[in-house]
C-alpha cells in the first residue's frame, strides 16, 4: 500500500470521479479514474440491494453489496454496460483482458448505517464507533492475474506503476475506499431533510477498507517460494541497513519518539475479540512501553554507536516476537532514504526448473542442510498429519480439514512440504548413488515438485515456510497474517484459526491529499481528535 501511495504522490496522480449514478439508497454505478503520467486505470463500481441473510464474507457467497472491476484505461459506455451484467456475478461472470482486477465488498452493518444516519442528521459520527470498526465496507475477494478471464499479470508486469506485486489489486482497493466514502455521503444526503453534513476530513481519512481473508492466501505462499523469498529478503536487507547506521542523528531520534507515541496510541485502539491476539496486543503494549523507557534515560542505547542495532538486540533479548516485529516496523520508518528503494526488488516473474545434473548425493546433502527442520518431524505420529488442505466443490472455496474424521484427504493440495521432503529423503537414502537424478525422477515422478522446490530454495533461502502445515498445531492464521503484513495491512482481527479481518488504507491520504508533503506518513493509523 505504501509503495502505491508513494508512487501516486511522486508522480502527481489524480483521481477523478467520472460517473456517479446512484439512487437515494446508494444503488447504481460509479466510475473512478486514476490517472498516472502514462496510463489511466478506472474502477467501475456497481452497488446493489442485498438481503441480510445473503451477506457473508465467504467465497461461497452468491451476492454482495457492491462489486468492482479495475478497468485498464477509461471504459466506454458499452464496457460499463457489459460489466454491469457480469461484475455482480463475480466468479460466475466472464471477463476480458481489458479488465485487470475483479472484487466485491459488503457494507459493515455496524458502521455504514450509523455513519449515514449521523451525517443525515447533521452530526459527525462518534470517533469511538469509527475506531471500533475502521471501515464502511469490507472486501471479500480481490482477484487478479487472469482469474475469470481478466488480464494476465504478464500484461502489466512491464508497467512501472503496476510492476510491484499486487499493485493493481491494491489500487483497486484504494479506489473502492473512495467509492465507499462518496456512497455513504450520497445516501446520507438523500435521506436528510436539509441537515446533511459531509464527513469531516480527518474522520474520512481514518476510514479504510476492511478485508476478510480466508485460507486462499496460504497456498499462494507455498506455491510462490521465490516471490516470498524476495519479500523477506527485502525486509531483512532493510533492517540490516538500519542496524548498520553508526550514529542516530537528533532528528531521527525525535522522529522515533514521535512514532513511538503514535504506535502506542495505535496499539491502544487495536481492539479484538480473539483471546490469543488480545493477549499478544497487551504484551506488545507493554513491550513498547519498555522501549520508551530504554530510550528515555541517559544511558539510552540511542547514544551508543550503532544505536538501532543495540535497541534491536535489547528487544530481541527481552521482548516478545510480536513486539520485536513492531519495533522493526518502527525502525524501517526512520530511514526511507535507505529502505524505500528495496521496493523495486519485490517482484519475481521467473520460474525455476530442475537441475538434473545434480547428483543424488548433492540433493541429499541439500536436504540435510536446508530441511533439517522437516526431517525432525515424526510423521508416524498421527497428529503430525492431522490436517489436510483442500478445495471444496462449492465455489472452489479453499478449506482445511481433519484427515481422520473428514472425507477428501485423497484430494489434498500438495502443501505438506515437510512430509514430502522427508519421504523423498528416506527414499534417497536407499537409492544407489549411481542412479542419476533424471533416471530417479523418471521412475519417481511423484517427487518432482518437491525436488524442484528443494533446488530452488537452496538459492531462495527465505522461500520456505519452515513448519509442518498439516500438523495438529498448525494455525493457518499465521500464514494469512504473514502475507497481509507485506501488503501493509493493519488492525489484524482474527475471527478463527482460519480466518481474519484486517484494515487496508486506514489513515491513507485521500485523493485530494496525495500531493501533500506528508502523504507517506500514515503508518500506525490513529483516531483523529474530536472537534
Amino acid at each position, binding site marked *: 500500500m505504501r509503495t502505491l501511495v508513494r508512487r501516486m504522490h511522486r508522480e502527481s496522480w489524480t483521481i477523478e470521479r467520472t460517473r456517479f449514478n446512484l439512487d437515494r439508497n446508494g444503488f447504481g454505478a460509479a466510475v473512478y479514474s486514476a490517472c498516472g503520467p502514462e496510463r489511466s486505470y478506472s474502477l467501475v463500481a456497481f452497488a446493489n440491494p442485498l438481503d*441480510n441473510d445473503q*451477506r*457473508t464474507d*465467504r467465497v*461461497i457467497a452468491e451476492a454482495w453489496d457492491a462489486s468492482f472491476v479495475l478497468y485498464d484505461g477509461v471504459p466506454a459506455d458499452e464496457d460499463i454496460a457489459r460489466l454491469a451484467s457480469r461484475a455482480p456475478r463475480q466468479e460466475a461472470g*466472464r471477463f*476480458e*483482458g*481489458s479488465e485487470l482486477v475483479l472484487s466485491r465488498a*459488503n457494507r*459493515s*452493518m*455496524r458502521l455504514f448505517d450509523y455513519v449515514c444516519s449521523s451525517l443525515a442528521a447533521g452530526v459527525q459520527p462518534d470517533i469511538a464507533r469509527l475506531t471500533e470498526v475502521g471501515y464502511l465496507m*469490507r472486501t471479500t475477494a480481490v482477484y487478479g*492475474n*487472469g482469474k*475469470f*478471464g*481478466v*488480464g*494476465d*499479470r504478464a*500484461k502489466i508486469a512491464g508497467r512501472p506503476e503496476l510492476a510491484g506485486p499486487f499493485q493493481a489489486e491494491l489500487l483497486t482497493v484504494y479506489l473502492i475506499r473512495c467509492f465507499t466514502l462518496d456512497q455513504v455521503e450520497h445516501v446520507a444526503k438523500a435521506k436528510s431533510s436539509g441537515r446533511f453534513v459531509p464527513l469531516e476530513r480527518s474522520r474520512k481519512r481514518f476510514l479504510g477498507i476492511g478485508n476478510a481473508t*480466508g485460507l486462499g492466501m496460504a497456498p499462494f505462499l507455498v506455491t510462490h517460494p521465490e516471490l516470498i523469498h524476495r519479500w523477506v529478503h527485502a525486509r531483512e536487507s532493510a533492517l540490516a541497513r538500519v542496524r548498520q547506521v553508526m550514529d542516530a542523528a537528533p532528528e531521527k531520534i525525535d522522529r522515533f519518539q514521535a512514532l513511538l507515541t503514535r504506535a502506542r496510541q495505535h496499539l491502544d485502539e487495536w481492539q479484538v475479540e480473539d483471546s490469543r491476539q488480545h493477549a499478544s496486543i497487551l504484551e506488545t503494549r507493554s513491550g513498547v512501553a519498555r522501549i520508551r523507557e530504554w530510550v528515555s534515560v541517559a544511558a539510552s542505547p540511542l547514544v551508543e554507536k550503532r544505536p538501532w542495532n543495540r535497541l534491536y538486540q535489547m528487544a530481541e533479548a527481552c521482548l516478545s516476537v510480536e513486539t520485536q516485529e513492531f519495533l522493526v516496523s518502527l525502525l524501517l520508518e526512520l530511514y526511507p532514504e535507505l529502505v524505500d528503494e528495496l521496493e523495486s526488488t519485490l517482484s519475481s516473474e521467473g*520460474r525455476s*526448473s*530442475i537441475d*538434473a*545434473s545434480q547428483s543424488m548425493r548433492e540433493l541429499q546433502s541439500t536436504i540435510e542442510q536446508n530441511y533439517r527442520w522437516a526431517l525432525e518431524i515424526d510423521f508416524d505420529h498421527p497428529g503430525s498429519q492431522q490436517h489436510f488442505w483442500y*478445495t*471444496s*466443490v*462449492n465455489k472452489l*472455496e*479453499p*478449506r*482445511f*480439514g481433519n484427515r481422520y*474424521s*473428514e*472425507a477428501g484427504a485423497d*484430494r489434498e493440495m500438495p502443501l505438506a512440504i515437510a512430509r514430502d521432503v522427508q519421504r523423498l529423503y528416506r527414499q534417497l537414502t536407499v537409492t544407489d548413488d549411481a542412479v*542419476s*537424478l*533424471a*533416471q530417479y*525422477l*523418471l*521412475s519417481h*515422478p*511423484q*517427487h*518432482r*515438485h*518437491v525436488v*524442484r522446490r528443494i533446488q530452488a530454495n537452496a538459492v531462495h533461502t527465505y522461500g520456505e515456510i519452515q513448519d509442518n502445515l498439516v500438523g495438529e498445531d498448525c494455525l493457518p492464521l499465521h500464514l494469512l497474517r504473514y502475507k497481509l503484513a507485506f501488503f501493509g495491512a493493519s488492525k489484524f482481527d482474527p*475471527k*478463527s484459526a*482460519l*480466518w481474519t479481518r484486517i484494515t487496508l488504507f486506514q489513515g491513507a491520504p485521500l485523493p485530494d491529499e496525495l500531493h501533500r508533503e506528508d502523504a507517506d506518513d500514515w503508518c500506525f493509523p490513529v483516531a483523529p481528535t474530536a472537534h
Partner: protein
Amino acid sequence: MHASNAEIETLTCKAAVGVGLPAGLAEDAGVAAAWLSGAGFAGADIACRAIENIRKGRARPVIISGHTASLCPDTKGKLASVMYAAPSLFDFLQTTSRVTVARLDEPLLLFAHLVCSSSVRAMELVLHSVGSTGKVLQGVIQRGHGRLEGPPFSDQEAKNGSEVSVTMVGGSQDRNFKPTKKESETRRAAIQRGVEVTEAIWAELQRLAAHTLVPESATSKQRGAGAGMIDND
C-alpha cells in the same frame, strides 16, 4: 470463448492432477499448454487430448528403453504420454546431447515444454519428429524461443504416435534467434487480450479438474473455512 493465459495454465494443471498426474508433472504441463496458446496454437485442445490419453489408458508413463537416451511407453502397444515424457526428456538433455522418444502422443506439447524450459537453462535444441504416416516435422528451440518448420505437429497422425528425437546443438550465443514480427504480434496479442478456447474443451478440462475437488458436506461447509455463514456486522 475468451480465456487468460493464466487460466489455461491453471486449468490444465488441475485437469492433469484430476486424472492422477503427479503435481510436478502437472505444473509443467500447464506451463507448456499456456505457452502453446500464447503462440497461436490450440494449447488447451492439445493439453486436453494428452490428458484424455492418460485417462483413457491410450498413453502411458515412459521408461528407459535400452540405453539412457531412449524413452518409450512402459506398456507395449501404448503411446508415450507427453506429460510424463517431456519433463524427463529435458532432464536427460542436461547430461546427454540427444534423447529420443518412441510413440509420443503429442509432440507439439513437448516442443512447448522444451521452449519454456530452455529459457531457464539457456539451451539450444533441435526437435525432429516423424509421424506414423511418415510426415517429418522439425522445430528449433533457443533460450525461451521456439520456431517450427513445416506444418503444425498437431497435423501428425496420432494413432501410433510419433518418433521424436531432440538434439542439443550447444549454447551458441552468436546465433541470432529472435521471434519474427508475426510471432511477436501473436504473443503480444495473447498477453494483451488473452486467447480463444472452444467452450467444449473448456468444459472438458473443468470436468477433469473437478476430480481434484472435495464434495460438500455439512462439516466442511460449516467448519472448513473458519468463517461464519452470515456476516452482518
